[in-house]
C-alpha cells in the first residue's frame, strides 16, 4: 500500500522585506505522522507553520494539503486545527461554547453539536468544566480545552505552535504525555513547533531541525540524535563535548585525531572520509564518558585529569573534568557503588570509538 501524503511543502521560500526567513523548504508529511519543527528562535519554524496555517503566504514554492494547492487560500477555508502558545480561548465564551465555535460555523445540528462537544471534552478528560469560563481554569486545563476545540472539527491536520512552553515543568511533561496519547488514539496528522529538543524527541515520528531559515536535517529522533547531519544539529540536541584537533590517519575502520590539548581520539567510521592533516571537531556526549579511579598512562580514547565540579542531579551526577587542557562534561549514573566524587581528585575518562562523532571545521 502506498503512503498517503497529507502535507507537502515544495521549495517554500519566505522573506520579510529583503530578509529571507525560510528557504528551500521541502517536506512530505504522511497521513497520521507526527512531525516536529525544531530550532532556536528565529529559525523560521513558526513562519513555516504560519504558512501552512494560511496566516502567511510563501513568496516562492508550493504548499499542498491533502493534494490540494493551498497558496492564497485563507486560513478559514483550510479545515485545520491549531493550538497556540497562549491558549487563545475566547474569554467571553464558556468552555462548551469555545469548543462548539468551529462546529457552529460548520452549521452542525444542535444535538450532534452537544454530543461532539461532550465526546471531545471526555477525550481531554475535562467533561466537568463545560460551563466554566476560560479564566476559571488552570493553564494546563486551558491548553487541554484549546486542543479539544481544535480536534472537535476533525481537522485534516493539527498544528501545534509551542503549546507547552507557557506551562511549568511538571505540567509540561504531563501534557506532553497527553499529546502523545491523543495522537495515538486519534492518529491525526500533526505538525508541532518547538524549541525544546526533549519534547521533539519524545513526541515525534520525524523531526525537522531548522537553523537560520534552512532545513539542517529531517529524520527520526534516533537519526537526529545519533547520526546528526551537521554540527548544529548535534550541538542543538543534547549536551556534548567538543574538542578541536587534526586528523592523524584515516583507515578502513575509522580515523585517529589528535586534539589541541594533546589527546589521541580514535573514532569509528564516519559518514564521510577525512584526509590526514584536516582540521576537525570531535564530539563525545557526556553520558558516553565513563569515569575511573586514579591516573593511567595516556592511550587512545582516554584522558586523565582532575575533577573540578560535581553537581548531583538525582538520577545522575554531572561532572566537569579538566583533562589535557580540555574541560570535559561527564554524566555519571549513580548506582551507589561508584567512587566518591570529591572535587579536586584525579580521575580517568574513557569512551568508545563508536561514540565519537567527527565533523569538519569550517575555516573562518
Amino acid at each position: 500500500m502506498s503512503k498517503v501524503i497529507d502535507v507537502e511543502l515544495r521549495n517554500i521560500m519566505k522573506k520579510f522585506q529583503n530578509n529571507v526567513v525560510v528557504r528551500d523548504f521541502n517536506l512530505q508529511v504522511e497521513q497520521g505522522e507526527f512531525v516536529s519543527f525544531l530550532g532556536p528562535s528565529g529559525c523560521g519554524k513558526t513562519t513555516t507553520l504560519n504558512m501552512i496555517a494560511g496566516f502567511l503566504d510563501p513568496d516562492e514554492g508550493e504548499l499542498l494539503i491533502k493534494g490540494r494547492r493551498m497558496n492564497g487560500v485563507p486560513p478559514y477555508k483550510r479545515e485545520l486545527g491549531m493550538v497556540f502558545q497562549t491558549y487563545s480561548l475566547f474569554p467571553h465564551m464558556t468552555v462548551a461554547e469555545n469548543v462548539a465555535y468551529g462546529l457552529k460555523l460548520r452549521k452542525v445540528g444542535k444535538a450532534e453539536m452537544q454530543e461532539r462537544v461532550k465526546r471531545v471534552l471526555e477525550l481531554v478528560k475535562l467533561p466537568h468544566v463545560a460551563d466554566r469560563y476560560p479564566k476559571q481554569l488552570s493553564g494546563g486545563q486551558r491548553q487541554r480545552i484549546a486542543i479539544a476545540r481544535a480536534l472537535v472539527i476533525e481537522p485534516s491536520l493539527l498544528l501545534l505552535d509551542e503549546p507547552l512552553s507557557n506551562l511549568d515543568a511538571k505540567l509540561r511533561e504531563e501534557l506532553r504525555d497527553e499529546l502523545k496519547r491523543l495522537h495515538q488514539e486519534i492518529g491525526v496528522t500533526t505538525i508541532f513547533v518547538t524549541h525544546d529538543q526533549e519534547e521533539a524527541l519524545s513526541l515525534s515520528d520525524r523531526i525537522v531541525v531548522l537553523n537560520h531559515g534552512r532545513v539542517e536535517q529531517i529524520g527520526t529522533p534516533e537519526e537526529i540524535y545519533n547520526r546528526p547531519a551537521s554540527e548544529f544539529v548535534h550541538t542543538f540536541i543534547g549536551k556534548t563535548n567538543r574538542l578541536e584537533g587534526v586528523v592523524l590517519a584515516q583507515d578502513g575502520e575509522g580515523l585517529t585525531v589528535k586534539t589541541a590539548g594533546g589527546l589521541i581520539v580514535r573514532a569509528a567510521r564516519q559518514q564521510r572520509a577525512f584526509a590526514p592533516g584536516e582540521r576537525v571537531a570531535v564530539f563525545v556526549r557526556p553520558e558516553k564518558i565513563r569515569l575511573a579511579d586514579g591516573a593511567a598512562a595516556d592511550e587512545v580514547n582516554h584522558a586523565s585529569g582532575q575533577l573540578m565540579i560535581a553537581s548531583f542531579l538525582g538520577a545522575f551526577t554531572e561532572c566537569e573534568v579538566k583533562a589535557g587542557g580540555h574541560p570535559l562534561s561527564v554524566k555519571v549514573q549513580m548506582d551507589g557503588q561508584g567512587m566518591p566524587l570529591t572535587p579536586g581528585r584525579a580521575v580517568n575518562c574513557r569512551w568508545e570509538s563508536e561514540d565519537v562523532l567527527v565533523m569538519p571545521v569550517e575555516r573562518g
Partner: protein
Amino acid sequence: MSKRLSILLLTAPSMIVLLGVFLIPMLLMLLLSFQDDTQAFSLQNYLLFIQDPFYLEILWRTIRISLWTVLCTLLLGFPVAMFMAQASGRMRGVVTMLILAPHLISVVIRNFGWVVVLGEKGWINETLLKLGLIDQPLRLMYNELGVVIGLTDSFIAYMVLAIATSLYAIDPSLSKAASILGASRVRTFFTVTLPLSLPGIIAGTTLVFSLSMSAFVTPALMGGTSVKVMPVIAYEQIMSTLNWPLGAALAFLLLGSTILLVTLYTRLIETKRYKEVFAS
C-alpha cells in the same frame, strides 16, 4: 504617619476645592430650584416643566441629539480604534496625537471653522452648486444635523480612545484562532472583536452621551436660535430672563435624566454574563 492619614492629607486640597466650588454651590442651586417668586418652598418649577410640552420637547431633542452623536462617534470611531490597535507603537502615538490635536484649539474657534465648511456659502455648498448637483444651498447647520456634526467632531476622540484601550487588551491570537476554526474576517469581528471590546464601547458611549447632554457651546453656535437644548435654555433662564429658580430646576432635570438614562443603559447592557467575563 499612618497610610490613611497621609492619603487624607494629600487629597485634602482638592477635596476642599471640590467642596467649596462644586458641592456647596450645587446644593445651593438645588435649594434654589425649589423656590417660587416669593422665595417660598414650592414645586412649581418642576411642575411647569412636566406640564409644558415646550420644555418636554426640548428635553427629548437634547436626548435625541445626544443619541445621534453617540451613534456617529461610535460608527466613525470604531474603525479608527481598530486601526490603532493593529498599528505599531509609533503609529499609535501619531494617530493619538492627530485625534487630540483639534482639542488644542478652543471649541468656539473649531465651531466657526465648521461655518466655513457647512455654511450656506461654505465650500460643500459652493462645490455642489458649481457642479450643478443642487439648485439651492443645503441646510447643513443651524439645525439638529449641524449640532450633531459639531458634537461628533468634539467628542469622537473620547470614543476612539475608550474603544482603542479595550482593543489593545485583546490577544491578537484570538482572531487567528477564530480564523483557523473557519470564521471569515467579518464573522471574526462580530463574534470575537466586537464582544470583547464591549467595556470600551460602554465607556465611550456613556462618556459621549453625558458630554453631549450637557454640551452648551456647540449647540448654541451650530444650532443657532432654532435648535434649543437643555443647557441652552437653562443658561437663558439664568442670564437673560433672570429666573434663577427655573434655570436651576432645568439644570437639575438635565442632570437627573442623564443619570437615569446612563444607569438604565448600563444595567441593561451589563448582564450577568458580562460581569462574569469582564470582572477583574
